[in-house]
């Protein structure tokens, strides 16, 4: 597919396929109300060694429909969208696209006929520019020479049309994750899209970017593009979905019209058990100020923050992506350099701050990115759990590890946190997201910590595991610990916190307590600031 015409800006007008695109299936009129479905899957099964990842799944998607795929991690959602995108061939069953059965579908063929997936793992080349990435594989050339200006214009036009605030000359590596996600979406829309697959597209977007993405999705829907949308977030699902299909353990649990189904029904279908409440009721008993900062600054990211957290309560920190909320607790723990201000633990100012010193002062930090900063994936659960405590008695004495004590402790914690599989020697790489998070949490119980800093504690884990994390926090707080909860999941902060700080551009702009902790209040502070900026 070289030499696609330069005016290939048809991503948003799928009813007019470019004249020179070589479609594998005969082009059918895009609008076929009452005719064929856009996509039909019949009894799709897919086995991987030792597991049936998909077991006789039926699925269909109409033109201009948004169909949400819902299920826990490992339920088969990823496998299913990979089958549709041509990454995995199904072992059994039929894939019918616009009335024609597709056989031997490859990712390349899928793209050619208008199936565009946006996966969570990005398919971007980090060292190339935005424009180069958008043109990758569909470069415009004449006599073998690239027409760089034309390609950049195409990228600019596309980004402008999407309303994405991105410079096409920027190198991907220098972009935030949210911006990389936007490039990935733009890339999917560059070709002639008829079926768009979005796999948790808002996971790293800010509220504003999310709204923009939703507007775009609405526009695509009006243009009769079918959309398969994978998400855990209830609010989005309610807002977007026409239909919702729930998978569990590779099996189809059911398909429901979005209008006819409640949140708790969906959760029940997903987990196979009744979930009465997502958020536990926490008995806050605020006591001594265990953690305090005065005028704390970190480079240009955190700017003079006065903040405190008391024993026996959860202190929430809310804010948009990039507001400095994560950097605040990272600086308190010693992972970001403090450029001004003080951190006080139990009223004592900390002269030097490093992770090792913080641990000794009773402060424990759970990083947002468990793979990068939390776990040694190739090492067993036991070593990962005991890492912060192994230098101390009773786990070691004079540099000798006491293996039996370590093993007993790990077993106890595995039991207490219901970690699965319950084998201390299993390498962490083989655990699911929720169980990896439990390994991290177990670490917090190996020493006598008083202050717990949670950085996005439920990112990438399913509802079942989320509830367990919340109950873990409840147990800690009710035992008298101070918890600081930094999260981009607003409901989480709202329901669990006793007090909430709202941060914006590195500053705390509000401190809310009790009845003032409402979504409206928090969002008002996000947007009030934004409006001021727009005005000034």
């Amino acid at each position, binding site marked *: 597919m070289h030499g696609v015409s330069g005016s290939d800006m048809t991503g948003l007008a799928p009813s007019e396929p470019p004249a020179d695109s070589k479609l594998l299936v005969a082009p059918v009129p895009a609008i076929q109300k009452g005719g064929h479905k856009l996509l039909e899957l019949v009894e799709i099964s897919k086995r991987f060694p030792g597991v049936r990842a998909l077991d006789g799944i039926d699925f269909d998607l109409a033109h201009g429909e948004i169909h949400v795929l819902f299920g826990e991690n490992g339920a088969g959602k990823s496998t299913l969208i990979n089958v549709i995108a041509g990454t995995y061939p199904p072992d059994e069953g039929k894939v019918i696209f616009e009335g024609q059965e597709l056989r031997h579908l490859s990712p390349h063929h899928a793209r050619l006929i208008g199936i565009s997936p946006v996966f969570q793992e990005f398919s971007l080349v980090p060292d190339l520019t935005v424009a180069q990435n958008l043109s990758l594989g569909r470069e415009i050339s004449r006599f073998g020479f690239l027409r760089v200006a034309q390609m950049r214009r195409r990228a600019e036009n596309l980004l402008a049309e999407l309303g994405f605030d991105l410079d096409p000359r920027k190198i991907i590596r220098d972009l935030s994750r949210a911006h990389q996600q936007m490039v990935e979406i733009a890339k999917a829309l560059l070709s002639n899209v008829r079926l768009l697959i979005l796999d948790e597209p808002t996971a790293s977007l800010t509220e504003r970017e999310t709204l923009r993405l939703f507007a775009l999705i609405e526009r695509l829907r009006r243009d009769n593009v079918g959309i398969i949308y994978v998400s855990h977030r209830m609010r989005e699902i309610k807002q977007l979905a026409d239909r919702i299909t729930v998978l569990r353990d590779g099996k189809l649990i059911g398909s429901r019209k979005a209008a006819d189904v409640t949140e708790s029904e969906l959760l029940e279908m997903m987990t196979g058990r009744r979930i009465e409440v997502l958020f536990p009721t926490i008995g806050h008993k605020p006591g001594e100020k265990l953690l305090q900062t005065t005028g704390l600054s970190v480079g240009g990211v955190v700017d003079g923050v006065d903040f405190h957290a008391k024993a026996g309560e959860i202190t929430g920190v809310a804010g948009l992506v990039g507001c400095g909320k994560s950097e605040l607790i990272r600086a308190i723990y010693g992972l970001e350099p403090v450029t001004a201000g003080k951190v006080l633990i139990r009223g004592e100012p900390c002269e030097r701050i490093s992770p090792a010193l913080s641990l000794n002062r009773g402060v424990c930090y759970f990083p947002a990115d468990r793979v990068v900063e939390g776990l*040694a994936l190739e*090492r067993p659960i036991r070593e990962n759990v005991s890492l912060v405590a192994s230098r101390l008695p009773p786990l070691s004495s004079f540099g000798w590890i006491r293996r039996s004590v370590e093993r007993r402790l790990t077993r106890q914690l595995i039991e207490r946190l219901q970690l699965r599989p319950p084998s201390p020697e299993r390498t962490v790489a083989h655990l699911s997201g929720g169980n990896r998070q439990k390994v991290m949490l177990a670490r917090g119980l190996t020493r006598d910590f008083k202050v717990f800093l949670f950085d996005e504690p439920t990112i990438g884990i399913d509802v079942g595991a989320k509830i367990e994390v919340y109950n873990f926090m409840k147990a800690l707080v009710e035992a008298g610990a101070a918890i600081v909860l930094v999260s981009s999941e607003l409901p989480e902060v709202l329901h669990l916190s006793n007090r909430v700080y709202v941060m914006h551009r590195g500053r705390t702009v509000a401190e809310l307590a009790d009845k003032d902790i409402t979504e409206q209040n928090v969002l008002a502070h996000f947007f009030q600031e934004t409006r001021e900026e727009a005005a000034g």
Partner: protein
Amino acid sequence: MSVMSVNREALMARISTRLSVVGLIPFLLILIVIGMMLVEPRFYSLPNLFNILRNTSFLAIIACGQMLVMIVGGMDLSVGATAALASVVAAKVMAGSAASYGLDPGLAIAVGVVASLGATAAVGFLNGLCSVLLRVPSLIVTLGTLSIVSGITLMMTSGIPVYGLPQGFIVDFGRASWWGIPAPAYVAVAVLAVVWLLQRTTLLGTYIYAIGGNPMAAMVSGVSATFYVVFTFVLCAVLAGVTGLLLTAQMGSGQTNLGGDRLMLLSIAAAVIGGTSLRGGIGRAEIVGLSALFLSTLTNALNLLRINSKKELVVLGVVVVAAVAIDSLGRGKAAVE
């Protein structure tokens, strides 16, 4: 977590270990032994078995050091040059102190050993410091020290072997057998035992694994990588030095071209074939020891079959690449969901 996915995980874990090279070693070793039994009776002569044992000992010690560096996520290309440095320094100091200062041979040996191990420790310190503090990849740092150290040993000796070692060092140690078994074997067993203990029972060993497994996670958990990484490089260099001393004692002279690139290649080969991960975090001394036995048996078999040393180098290269390939493919399979 459903029962089904637990089973899948268990299965994946089993598949990935089954595909690794480590499981193949005993099998291949037996294959070589049986093959040699059929074609070459000299393989079973006691002198030849002792020869294999000696070579295994040299290799196991230097490969243990290499393995530790690879566990923290590095690689040490300078081990061969470091062994040669140990050889030359030991020979010079022993010969010099016995001749010029009239030291008692025993004392001269002790001074020589301390001096040469000290020199190697300095090399390791330099390697570690540069790779941690200056953030130069260890592959490049040790390539540099390989050149530097080789240059220094050549300057010290002009490339001429250093003679005049105390006879006791050669006769009672290097070429000696204690209770019927070559002396280097005892040293190798001791080194393997110490590293094994270090890995299994000490905080140091645990931290080396943790840092190699995920340096960021170790840092967040309050483990200072600097000290442990530097220490690991020092340990690796000193173990290379021990190998250098053993070879010196066997040959009876200090040599600038003790094993050179071959020793370095073999040490990496033994570590990798012994299941040490190139990405860090994984590696066990006892298996590296077994892998050293395998490699020494293989090279010995090649020698007996009159495959000359040039062809042997080709075979070694192929074995190393194949070992890593099998390992990576095994891991790749396990990673696919």
